[in-house]
């Protein structure tokens, strides 16, 4: 019993910080339905700027720069103001040009901005943690209650600051003109514009306030755990987003409640479950899934926000013009499903294996086909059916772990069977791993697919996190972080297909099969039902399409491909660990299809080619050799530009016909 009181205090602290950051997400989402992933980085910048201002000097870009050594109570508001301004600038440059773009473009731009800011922060402040400076308020001796509850004075400060800013914001939204305009815009942006509300200013205001809250949360977090680091914002950002969704995104009291609830669940799970700390994130996400299953709009959310957001996912058909014209003409031609052209393309892809002699480039191609296939699976869910899924990598992991556990831990480890004797099992596992992933997809999908839009996205993200945490912590099953090694390389009648050339050819053969299979499904009534759901779920249902069933089918089909690719991946790598299935992979795969072109067959592969080749070529640049962290900054920049100039993706013209060819 003597830990209960302390846990209560710990939870309150954490909850206050989650709640503040959740306000940032909720405010911007409420106004423009954008999940601004970059808030995690604004959170981090708030911390860095505040710490820098409080020090007498700090190393920036490796040089010692003099700093004003301000007291905490001056540095805090200053940092908040600077970051709030930065938030508005980011909105102006990266999001406003995308106001009328397809739905996913701003989301991808937000992720790109987040990657960019993180890399830039590492360039400025370096990779090492910066210690939060000591200051008078933080040095006061703790208050001790009942001998067992220690409360630092700063903890009271955090709580008071959180409550005060929440109340301030609520009053602002209730009683000021701007606040009312914000509420009106959230209700109906078109109507708001019609009655003369300056919508752009309102949105800028939402970013201003949101960024200020993120920065405040960042400073308080940094103070509480006494550090600042370039990647410190990622996980708290995700937690804040989860809290916002839990409380009902768009609702300010919901954000507060969600933040507190999440913090309490995490803290008490960590405190009372055996080895709870390792499982705390999984418990948090499990609660999220449970709440959303019974109350899809979140605890205090309005039902309307759980509707599918307006606007097309894929965007209008683009007319070929400008620099993209030749690209467009080519893909327009490709999209018509010309058999000769497809065979020619496949032949070129096969020929590459023999033209390229450099193993490095062949290995790059192995990854291009692997990620291209994986993205093709996700494309069924996102590109064709229009369901935003941020947890697709879970299927990939299921396939990879299934085959690895079977081959290495069970067959060889327990029964001593030589993998060479059962080489054919790899091919069977491609199917079985896919089927297992599809089955899990169906089980998870049944409660979750009632959700729409971004709620579904957060839910799938939670599902992935749970799978990843299980893979990390259930050591008896998966060997945890140590990973599984010695996975046999694929072989054909005893001939190992180990070299990059053979792996590429095998991957290519699978890719052709996968695309062929997807094409056959998409070019039929099934594909038409999927696209109908994407374009207008209500109309699809009214036309007799059992939308819930088809969404589940789409999810399971995508999952099948994810599982299948996982099996291929495990055997081609010969080693897997939870590191291969990180959270960022989900976002990466989503980016691949948005970059390449949603709802096209070639898009996923094109996106994978662009991404992997860009990163590899960049590795060799002199600037990147000196400053490796700038590689991702460059990537983020290219992505933002791509989204602004080509939000429909590179192969936007390669629209897929949904008719069975005669």
């Amino acid at each position, binding site marked *: 019993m003597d830990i209960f009181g302390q846990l209560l205090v710990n939870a309150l602290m954490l909850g206050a910080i989650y709640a503040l950051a959740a306000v940032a997400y909720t405010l911007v989402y409420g106004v423009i339905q954008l999940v601004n992933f970059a808030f995690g980085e604004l959170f981090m910048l708030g911390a860095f700027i505040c710490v820098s201002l409080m020090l007498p000097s700090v190393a920036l870009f490796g040089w010692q720069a003099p700093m004003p050594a301000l007291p905490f109570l001056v540095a805090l508001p200053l940092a908040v103001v600077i970051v709030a301004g930065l938030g508005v600038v980011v909105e102006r440059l990266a999001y406003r040009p995308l106001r009328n773009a397809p739905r996913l473009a701003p989301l991808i731009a937000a992720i790109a901005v987040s990657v960019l800011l993180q890399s830039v922060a590492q360039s400025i402040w370096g990779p090492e943690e910066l210690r939060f400076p000591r200051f008078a308020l933080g040095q006061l001796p703790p208050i001790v209650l009942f001998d067992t509850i220690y409360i630092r004075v700063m903890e009271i400060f955090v709580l008071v600051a959180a409550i005060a800013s929440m109340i301030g914001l609520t009053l602002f939204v209730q009683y000021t003109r701007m606040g009312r305009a914000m509420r009106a815009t959230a209700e109906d942006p078109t109507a708001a514009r019609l009655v003369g509300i300056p919508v752009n200013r309102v949105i800028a205001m939402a970013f201003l306030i949101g960024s200020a809250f993120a920065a405040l949360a960042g400073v308080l977090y940094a103070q509480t755990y006494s550090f600042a680091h370039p990647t410190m914002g990622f996980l708290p950002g995700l937690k804040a987003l989860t809290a916002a969704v839990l409380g009902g995104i768009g609702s300010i009291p919901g954000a507060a409640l969600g933040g507190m609830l999440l913090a309490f669940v995490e803290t008490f799970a960590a405190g009372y479950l055996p080895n709870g700390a390792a499982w705390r994130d999984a418990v948090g996400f499990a609660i999220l899934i449970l709440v959303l299953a019974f109350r899809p709009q979140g605890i205090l959310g309005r039902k309307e926000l759980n509707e599918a957001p307006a606007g*097309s996912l*894929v965007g*209008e*058909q683009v007319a070929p013009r400008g620099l993209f014209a030749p690209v467009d003409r080519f893909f327009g031609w490709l999209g018509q499903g010309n058999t000769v052209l497809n065979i020619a393309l496949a032949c070129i892809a096969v020929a590459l294996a023999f033209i390229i002699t450099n193993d490095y480039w062949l290995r790059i191609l192995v990854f291009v086909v692997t990620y291209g296939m994986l993205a093709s699976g996700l494309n069924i869910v996102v590109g064709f059916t229009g369901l935003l899924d941020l947890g697709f990598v879970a299927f990939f992991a299921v396939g990879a772990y299934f085959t690895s556990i079977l081959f290495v831990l069970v067959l060889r480890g327990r029964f001593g069977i030589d993998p060479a004797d059962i080489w054919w099992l790899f091919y069977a596992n491609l199917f079985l791993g896919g089927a297992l992933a599809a089955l899990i997809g169906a089980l998870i999908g049944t409660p979750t697919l009632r959700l729409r839009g971004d709620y579904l996205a957060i839910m799938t993200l939670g599902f992935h996190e749970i799978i990843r945490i299980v893979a990390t912590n259930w050591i008896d099953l998966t060997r945890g972080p140590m990973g599984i090694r010695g996975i046999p390389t694929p072989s054909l009648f005893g001939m190992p297909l180990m070299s990059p050339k053979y792996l590429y050819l095998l991957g290519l053969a699978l890719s052709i099969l996968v695309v062929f*299979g997807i094409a*056959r*499904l998409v070019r*039929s*009534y*099934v594909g*038409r*039902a999927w*696209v*109908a759901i*994407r*374009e*207008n779920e*209500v*109309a*699809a*249902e*009214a*036309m*007799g*399409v*059992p*939308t*819930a069933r088809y969404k589940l089918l789409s999810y399971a089909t995508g999952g099948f491909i994810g599982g299948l690719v996982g099996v291929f991946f495990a055997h081609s790598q010969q080693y897997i660990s939870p590191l291969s299935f990180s959270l960022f992979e989900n976002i990466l795969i989503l980016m691949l299809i948005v970059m390449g072109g949603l*709802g096209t067959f070639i898009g996923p592969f094109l996106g994978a080619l662009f991404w992997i080749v860009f990163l590899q070529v960049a590795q060799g640049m002199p600037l990147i050799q000196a400053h490796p962290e700038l590689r991702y900054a460059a990537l983020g920049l290219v992505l933002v530009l791509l989204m602004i100039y080509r939000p429909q993706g590179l192969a936007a013209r390669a*629209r897929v*016909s*949904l*008719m*069975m060819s*005669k």
Partner: protein
Amino acid sequence: MSVLLETRGLTVEFGGLFALKAVDLQVADGAIHGLIGPNGAGKSTMVNALTGLVPTSAGSMQLADRPLHGRPTWEIADAGIARTFQNIRNFAGMTVLENTLVGAHRHFRASFAALLRRSRAAREEEESQRARALEALHFVGLRGRDEQMATGLSYGHQRRLEIARALMLQPRLLLLDEPLAGMNAAEKDELADIIRAIRDRGITVLIIEHDMQIMRTLCDRLSVLHHGALLADGTPKEVFSNPLVQSAYLGQAA
């Protein structure tokens, strides 16, 4: 004539407000049945309730003795009620032909395996539905536009596309929610002819429309909704001479 659609005490409530109050509606098999009423009378709510898009809080509905209240939308469609939408809801990213074929969803039987193999049955099924779709497009006057993107059609043609798509269900009852809105007189007449032709194919039509001129000649029967309740019911002649109806409309005009 037998009754095709019947509702008893159909009620829709939104947080204490009644959008529909115990509506008893009967639509005869093979009729063109008009549903009129001033703005906000609950006409669209009625169509949405009939298709399961709005949950009903009380009452029942049945189509040819088959109870359908509380069933999901797709099942109601599958049972034979097709509809169009007041604000057009075509599928933007699809061609005209693909749009139309979505309406044929319930006629497809091919399994996943059959599709992957592209079995003979799957191909034949697709071929026969494609032929039906082309015929339906021809019927509504969209011949030769099947390869076009749906968004590229003119407003009037988009309405026709919605009708063609609904006809692909082979419904027993077709619900048209303001199909003539925003059209000029010539277009309205053409569409009215199409609606009659639909009725002549044995499909019962329930139509919501504001243009009384057209409704007077088009409909076999009319029902009037006012403040969510059924105000009058009868032939167009009976309804338009009903003083209650007149005052309801005048009341709104005033």
